């Protein structure tokens, strides 16, 4: 083993070293300050390293050391409520160690070595255990029980297992052959954690967002992409998902995004309540923040760090959702490093392996039976920021080939403040069929039809709009004018949702159903009134129609809706017709 490694060349985040035996993806410490880097190429005596920290002032000839380990994360109790940078350094610890600005050469453990956790064994002496088996539990936060597992590559018979308060690096269990287990395990981020077997997703991820749950649902264990030009509300949508999704664990990766936005998330999450448990949302969340001006190599790694943590909780049998905002920044980090390596570029300067990397990442999602036999899932929701809002660019296209749900954000909708600005004509979900049974059992047998009718109306509206553009709406026959009006109600009353309104920000499935049903009911009654000879002008003046517009904001939704439905009956009766 050669150990007299030194720096040969430096060009931004790419450093070439010589005189060191390395393997691909080994983590090395570069220079006098020991900056963290990862080997990404080997040629002869020289290795190419991407460095996760600023390289200004580093000189050729400075020493380099190989840790012999690939880039890994620490997995164990204490992950929840943490805020990490792209390589799992806790930001609060960095702040204590180096002040308000991120400086370099500072090392920080991913998990606190000081904190003690109450370990309760669930296995006993003499038990045969294999990789992934649960040997004990720790109450990590009030509602999340952290299940301590045997690392995937270990097995044996338990010779000793302890009980009581321990730090994460203290031995809690000894296996035959003297193998010692702590509550913490390390796992290389670029390698997916093994599972028992993959299962087909069959339950929707309920997000409380009407256009998502109602029209384009994603399944637990599924994948979704949100592409959109800037200002169309990607980040708000991602944050709404992180806040309200009904998964047990949320991993939120702010990858190359704005510092102020991350600050907002960091401030807001500890204060928000989980609608199910009433506890702060932060207690089920792991945040990874690598803003756009933090080192680009760490940005590249942040996505892997996040998904590895998600896999770890999935292995315990939890439903996990992972939001990556934005995968375009991640791909750009790849492009930047690739161009520094002077690799042959593929489309638009992105490396030729872009598609492979994207699909590898999304493929780490899924509903699985984990090694210990429990069922868990990872739902991956990736934001995409296509340049100029042009969906034909490589990242959007490669992503669409993989994901099953596509929420197309639309700048035009955002401009008229229709939020969430998800275009109902371009978006799709390939899970609607697979989830049909769930909706039938848990929402209502009528749901599927309501949804399909609403979609059909919206489709019809867009066709009619083309005519209206030419001749004006008054030239349309009355029944078509009514169709336009009902479609407008679906758009404005149902699809529009105000993320900043205390009531409207989260809409349970039951409420979604009732709201859509009431709009449809008004539509049907109006239709029969029109057929019965009532003037369209009179129908349009309907007061209950206007009341429906605001009912979603009511705290006591059911009562308010009940009143409206009642007066709707009376109103149409008084309109007459036959």
């Amino acid at each position, binding site marked *: 083993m050669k150990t007299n490694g030194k720096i*040969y*060349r*430096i*060009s*931004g985040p790419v450093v070439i070293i010589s005189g060191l035996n390395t393997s691909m993806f080994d983590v090395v410490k570069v220079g006098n300050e020991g900056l963290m880097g990862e080997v990404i190429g080997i040629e002869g005596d020289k290795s190419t390293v991407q460095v996760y920290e*600023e*390289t*200004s*002032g580093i*000189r*050729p*000839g400075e020493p380099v050391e190989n840790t012999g380990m690939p880039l890994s994360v620490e997995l164990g109790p204490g992950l929840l409520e943490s*805020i990490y940078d792209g390589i799992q350094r806790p*930001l*609060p610890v960095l*702040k204590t160690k180096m002040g*308000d*600005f*991120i*400086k370099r050469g500072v090392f920080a453990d991913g998990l606190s070595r000081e904190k003690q956790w109450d370990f309760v064994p669930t296995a006993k002496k003499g038990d045969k255990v294999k990789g992934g088996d649960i040997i004990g539990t720790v109450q990590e936060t009030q509602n999340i029980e952290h299940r301590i597992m045997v690392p995937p590559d270990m097995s044996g018979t338990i010779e000793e297992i302890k009980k009581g308060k321990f730090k994460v690096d203290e031995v809690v269990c000894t296996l035959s052959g003297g193998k010692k287990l702590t509550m913490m395990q390390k796992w290389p981020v670029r390698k997916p954690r093994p599972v028992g077997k993959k299962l087909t997703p069959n339950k929707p991820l309920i997000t409380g967002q009407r256009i998502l749950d109602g029209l384009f649902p994603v399944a637990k264990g599924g994948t979704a992409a949100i592409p959109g030009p*800037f*200002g169309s509300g990607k*980040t708000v949508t991602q944050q709404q998902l992180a806040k309200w999704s009904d998964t047990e664990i949320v991993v939120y990766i702010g990858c*190359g995004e*704005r*510092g*102020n*936005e*991350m*600050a*907002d998330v*960091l401030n*807001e999450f500890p204060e928000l309540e989980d609608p199910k448990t009433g506890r702060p949302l932060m207690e089920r969340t792991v945040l990874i*923040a690598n*803003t*756009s*001006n933090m080192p*680009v190599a760490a940005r590249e790694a942040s996505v892997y760090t996040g998904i590895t943590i998600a896999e770890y909780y999935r292995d315990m049998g939890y439903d996990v959702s992972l939001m990556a905002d934005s995968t375009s920044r991640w791909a*750009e980090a790849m*492009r*930047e490093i690739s*161009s520094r390596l*002077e690799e042959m570029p593929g489309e*638009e*300067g992105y490396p030729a392996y872009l598609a492979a990397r994207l699909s590898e990442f999304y493929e780490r999602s899924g509903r699985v039976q984990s090694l210990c036999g429990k069922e868990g899932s990872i739902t991956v929701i990736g934001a995409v920021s296509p*340049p*100029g809002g*042009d969906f034909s660019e490589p990242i959007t296209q490669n992503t669409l080939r993989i994901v099953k749900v596509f929420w197309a954000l639309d700048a035009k909708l955002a401009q*008229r*403040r229709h939020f969430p600005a998800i275009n109902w004509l371009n978006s799709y979900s390939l899970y609607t069929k697979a989830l049909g049974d769930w909706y039938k059992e848990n929402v209502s047998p009528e749901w599927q039809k309501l949804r399909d009718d609403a979609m059909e109306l919206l489709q019809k509206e867009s066709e009619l709009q083309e005519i*209206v*553009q*030419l001749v*004006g*709406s008054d*030239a349309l026959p009355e029944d078509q004018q009514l169709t336009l009006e009902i479609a407008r109600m679906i758009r*404005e009353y149902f699809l529009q949702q105000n993320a*900043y309104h205390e009531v409207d920000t989260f809409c349970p499935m039951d409420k979604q159903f009732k709201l859509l049903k009431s709009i449809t009911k008004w539509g049907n009654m109006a239709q029969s009134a029109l057929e019965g000879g009532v003037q369209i002008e009179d129908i349009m003046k309907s007061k209950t129609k*206007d009341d429906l517009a*605001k009912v979603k904001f009511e705290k006591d939704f059911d009562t308010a809706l009940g009143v409206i439905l009642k007066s709707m009956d009376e109103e149409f009766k008084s309109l007459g017709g036959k």
Partner: protein
Amino acid sequence: MTKEYKTIREIAGPLIFVEKTDPVGYNELVNITLPDGSTKRGQVLDTSEDIVVVQVFEGAGGLNRDSKVKFTGETIKLPVSKNLLGRILSGSGEPLDGGPRIVPEDRLDITGAAINPYARLPPKEFIQTGISTIDGMNTLVRGQKLPIFSGSGLPHNEIALQIARQAKVRGSDEQFAVVFAAMGITNEEAQYFMRDFERTGALERAVVFLNLANDPAVERLITPRLALTAAEYLAYEHDMHVLVILTDITNYCEALRQMGAAREEVPGRRGYPGYMYTDLASLYERAGVIKGRKGSVTQFSILSMPGDDITHPIPDLSGYITEGQIVISRELHRKGIYPPINVLPSLSRLMNSGIGATRTREDHKAVSDQLYAAYAEGKDLRGLVAIVGKDALSDRDKKFLEFADMFEDRFVRQGVDENRDIETTLDLGWELLASLPEAQLTRIDNKYIQKYHPAHKGKK
């Protein structure tokens, strides 16, 4: 003593390649002495045991293989002091105003370091600019970065100056210090800014960095970094609220492309380097508020969109980094409306945290949303009118059509020195909305309609 080298192997554009050096640090500052005794400065772009690549800021004119290269052993630093205020410096930080050199209280690395997101305070203090389209509909807050997306021949400079003059946080007497960095703008434009700073007395509280159109393009790469370093120093060490005006980001990006081409890099979209996003982020992200520190850095950059194309890589990448954008419209400008701000594509991402009952007024968001929706609808109808004529419209549609005209004429239009406070702006909004049927105001909660709608206001 640091050694001098006369081992230049190659000169290519603004780059020189130096051989056989002792180890040289990445990003190090370089002094170059020409045979005629004049000096230039440069920065290390790539360093290895065999060869060092240096980019020369003042351009390679006059350089030859006999020039002497000296590596200073440190990265580029800006001498900072409170006395920077009132000074005019060149694009590389040398005094241009005939004043003395800055006696430094500190010397700071101009690359700056990223603010730990955990140390940031989410910006939420409302800045009143006195311009209705900004305050009412795209509110600026302290610590935000909000660029003006403009085009050639549009009055972005007037707007930037109006903001610099009028911007204030309500209920406080604190003044903004202004850091102004010109990158590749013409002498005439620079004079325009300077005259206005002098006229309003703003110069005393300003630091000016000038890299003009005839100054070397490479220098443009450090000018904004000098400006932001000065801004951060004044904000975080001297508790000032600093408004940074960078103009023109497009010239900066051109310089970046020029350097990329000189280094024979693989180009990205339209020839701009693939790392332009990261590079721009390293400028824009140097805005914010830090927990426990009093000052703040707010950025207001000007960016002229080539061909008014918002999907061009420069505005596009900027839009993904900044917290919104103010878009100047040629159409409104042609109609003679000042400030010709088109609110529809404009956006302030931090608006929602800066407005509301405690900061501006409770009805602010509702009014703004309703104005947006109504104006968007009215503008759509204009397209329809062009085809079918006004008579084919329903009464409701006619109202929206008229609304759009009134909105442009009364809400958007205002005087260069007209400073509207937020109440005036919101009341004006209500006045316009009152022309629409009340049932159409679907974005506004009924309780606000009762309280603020001119038809109900004051009645009980």
